[in-house]
């Protein structure tokens, strides 16, 4: 009889160990699955994060490039006024007007016509910027100086350019 009890106890113990092993196995599998899912989610999050960082870095580079280009353009826009101020300081228009008014008149009209055309061109008026010079300007009127940004007159010393009808 005692053998039967011992056998029952042994079976009971073996069953308990087997059940424990089974529970341990299923629980471990469940954990592995959960961890695998979490890992996949983290990988996706990491990819998204890296993608966002790359996009932000590209955006920052693009912004820096555009900002630098803007600074150059803003400086360039100052050139015309700066050159004009320098030219006016160099020249003595009053003396030129007394010495040879027709000459100064032609230079002023030529530079003015050129200035209007340049401004029209800068705003997109291509036909206006390439339009013919007014009839009071001779072809040799000297439409501005060599530089396009030297101001209201050039340093030409050619004679009278203004037509008088």
């Amino acid at each position, binding site marked *: 009889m005692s053998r039967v009890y011992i056998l029952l106890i042994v079976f009971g113990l073996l069953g308990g160990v087997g059940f424990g092993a089974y529970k341990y196995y299923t629980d471990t599998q469940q954990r592995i699955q959960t961890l695998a899912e979490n890992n996949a989610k983290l990988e996706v999050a990491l990819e998204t994060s890296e993608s966002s960082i790359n996009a932000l870095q590209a955006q920052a580079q693009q912004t820096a490039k*555009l900002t630098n280009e803007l600074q150059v353009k803003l400086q360039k826009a100052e050139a015309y006024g700066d050159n004009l101020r320098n030219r006016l300081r160099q020249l003595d228009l009053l003396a030129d007007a007394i010495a040879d008014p027709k000459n100064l008149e032609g230079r002023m009209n030529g530079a003015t016509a050129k200035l209007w055309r340049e401004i029209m061109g800068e705003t997109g008026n291509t036909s206006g910027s390439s339009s013919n010079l007014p009839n009071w300007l001779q072809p040799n009127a000297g439409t501005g100086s060599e530089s396009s940004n030297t101001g209201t007159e050039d340093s030409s010393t050619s004679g009278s350019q203004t037509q008088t009808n």
Partner: protein
Amino acid sequence: MVARPKPIDLADTRVYVVSKNNLEEFIAEFTDENGELAFVALSIGDYENLALNVAELRRYINQQTDIIVYYEESMKPDETAKTD
């Protein structure tokens, strides 16, 4: 993208330079051309100021355009992000 304003269309303007040396000649020619002797006169200094004022306006217009172009470029979708 908002359309740009219409380009400007400027008319030619004629300047007469008159000193005591050609005053009589100017009066005769001007009257012959325009019929009446009436004109707007500027001193050399005011003419220089007018030219500098135009230069300032031109600078402002061009810088304003540059800034608009900057914002237009900034708002464009990133081409590299599209291809990634």
